[in-house]
């Protein structure tokens, strides 16, 4: 049964080894499910959240993985809309990663809201002024797009492909993929932006608030930029990881290098504006709200976070990615991508948690947020969920179109 499902002409590890690997993954996922069940059953009181930290690890994780999932739409955009054919090597994986990120984010979102059974109210009674409404609508639509993008790959499974309807359907989907890529790009652009807008519009929260353009605060654009500057980095990282684990060359190096180069440019582009924004925020926006820049940073959420975000996880990876020699070195490339991804996590964390730790009323106090295991478990399970989907996809679907070519079985 197992071997019948594996694509033709490729080699996979033994079913036993695969099962063992799955067991580990299911262990982690099981732990996450227990945590999630606890939250649903007992309520959010089992988390570290409180009236100071309305948002915490769940939202940080959500925002981070959605940003990192941007690799899907951006790679799609480059491949189908711009026409960078060499990225076809990697586009399937990018879609899978995007699918993981978005479905995972929605699962966690279900835990995060206090009344999950009313979650659908945001469609039933939407408030059009809310950035969150925009986010929820766009994410839902884009998840559907990702499912559609993922579908042909699933249908290319050796057994499924034998069903003529599926075969034609998947073929037809391939034909019109450019439409979905474009739709995805549009939707993604907006919800990545809205996620930034989510914070930028909080005009009573001096740490998050930003001036902006028309109805969009600068964070709107910065979040888009940071997402596309880090999403592809995750795609590269996952590719390198799969290659490392399988000890195979699955994607041509020039495809990876191209993506790395583009990422480097985007990161540099983002950083310029991020630094400008930080400077404007520190010298103009914050003082206009009565706050000095120094007040924003206090232990444990000190200035080191800003340094880590912009210099260590921003400028350094940008330099690596923009230097052809460096990005062609696998180790340096991985370091750069890891830093890039870490940078975006810090960015989302800072906007989510540090923003709320800050006392706005002068007689108020700093609070520190400590997540509990019920928050960690589902968050970690999210990564395991990613590993599960990628493992299954890699084993049973032709994720890497050039695998056979690059790894001929003798």
């Amino acid at each position, binding site marked *: 049964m197992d071997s019948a499902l594996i694509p033709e002409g490729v080699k996979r590890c033994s079913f036993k080894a695969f099962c063992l690997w799955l067991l580990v993954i299911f262990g982690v996922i099981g732990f996450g499910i227990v945590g999630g069940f606890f939250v649903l059953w007992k309520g*959010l009181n089992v988390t570290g*959240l409180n009236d100071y930290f309305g*948002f915490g690890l769940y939202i940080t994780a959500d925002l981070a993985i959605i940003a990192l999932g941007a690799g899907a739409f951006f790679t799609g955009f480059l491949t189908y809309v711009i026409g960078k054919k060499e990225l076809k090597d990697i586009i399937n994986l990018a879609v899978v990663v995007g699918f993981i990120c978005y479905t995972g984010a929605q699962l966690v979102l279900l835990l995060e809201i206090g009344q999950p059974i009313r979650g659908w*109210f945001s469609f039933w009674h*939407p408030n059009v002024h*809310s950035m969150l409404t925009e986010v929820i609508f766009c994410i839902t639509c884009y998840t559907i797009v990702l499912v559609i993008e993922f579908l042909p790959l699933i249908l290319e499974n050796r057994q499924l492909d034998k069903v003529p309807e599926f075969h034609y359907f998947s073929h037809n989907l391939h034909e019109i993929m450019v439409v979905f890529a474009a739709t995805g790009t549009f939707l993604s652009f907006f919800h990545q932006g809205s996620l930034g807008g989510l914070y930028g519009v909080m*005009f009573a929260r*001096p740490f998050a608030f930003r001036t902006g353009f028309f109805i969009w605060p600068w964070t709107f654009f910065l979040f888009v930029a940071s997402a596309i500057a880090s999403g592809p980095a995750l795609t590269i990282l996952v590719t390198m990881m799969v290659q490392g684990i399988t000890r195979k060359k699955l994607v041509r190096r020039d495809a990876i290098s191209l993506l790395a180069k583009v990422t480097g440019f985007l990161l540099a582009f983002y950083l310029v504006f991020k630094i400008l924004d930080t400077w404007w925020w520190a010298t103009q926006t914050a003082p206009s709200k009565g706050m*000095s820049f120094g007040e924003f940073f206090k232990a444990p959420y000190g200035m080191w976070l800003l340094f880590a975000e912009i210099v260590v996880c921003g400028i350094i990876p940008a330099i690596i990615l923009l230097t052809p020699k460096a990005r062609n070195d696998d180790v340096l490339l991985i370091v750069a991508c890891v830093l890039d991804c870490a940078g975006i996590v810090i960015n989302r964390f800072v906007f989510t948690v540090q923003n709320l730790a800050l006392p706005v*009323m002068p007689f108020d106090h700093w609070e520190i947020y400590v997540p509990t295991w019920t928050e960690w478990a589902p968050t970690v399970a999210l990564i395991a969920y990613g590993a599960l989907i990628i493992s299954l996809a890699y084993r049973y679907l032709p994720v890497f179109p050039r695998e056979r070519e690059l790894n001929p079985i003798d």
Partner: protein
Amino acid sequence: MSGNESGKIRYGMVIDLDKCTGCMTCAVACQQENNVPFREDETKKVRSITWLEVFYLDNGKPYPEHRKAYLPRPCLQCDADPHPPCTFVCPVNATQRDEETGLVAHIPVRCIGCRYCISACSYHARYFNWWDPKWPKAMEEMLTPDVSTRMRGVVEKCTFCVHRLQLAKDKAFVEGRQELEEGEYVPACVEACPAKAMYFGNLADSHSEVAKLAKSPEAFRLLEKLGTEPKVIYLSSQEWIHKLADNVV
């Protein structure tokens, strides 16, 4: 309210911190009036629901120059145009400002508990129900039917006892009046204040007591610079208290 040329209503509160004795009757009256739940341990303040919270202020000086004051903080019912920070962000329309009264309502049964509004409010005026509210069985008899009880997983906050507005209006309607007299609608905290340090009325009516007090040189609002336009105004003759009203760069 009478004497108001424009007919506009902006209900607001004035709290005289010089008169306030820090007795916390306002906060107790509020809990009673609005079926605010309580638990055995309420000392984790970041999870304790107090629609009207009392903040502790001090001048930061050592003994015996040390001075303290208590600052009662209901929901400040921000009048920012076009939206208060909180209603603006709600994805499900669970919170809105009534533009005819200026009152910011929150409807817990509509709320999905995303807590975006909690994050958006700089005054910590919004509270999440971390637990299902539970009362000792007998105490369920002392719950008022005017305010519905909430459930776990939703946000709640001070409404300026808007149900009292409805009760006052009902009374006026049955008496054949369309308009309310000043003082007919007063939130529970204001009514209970034994030092008469709290005032309530229509800020848009220049003849009302609150409108006059709001113009006093002793008047200030919290975090004026944020542009939230709160409709709760504080009075104090103490310079150190004024300094705590807003952040200074």
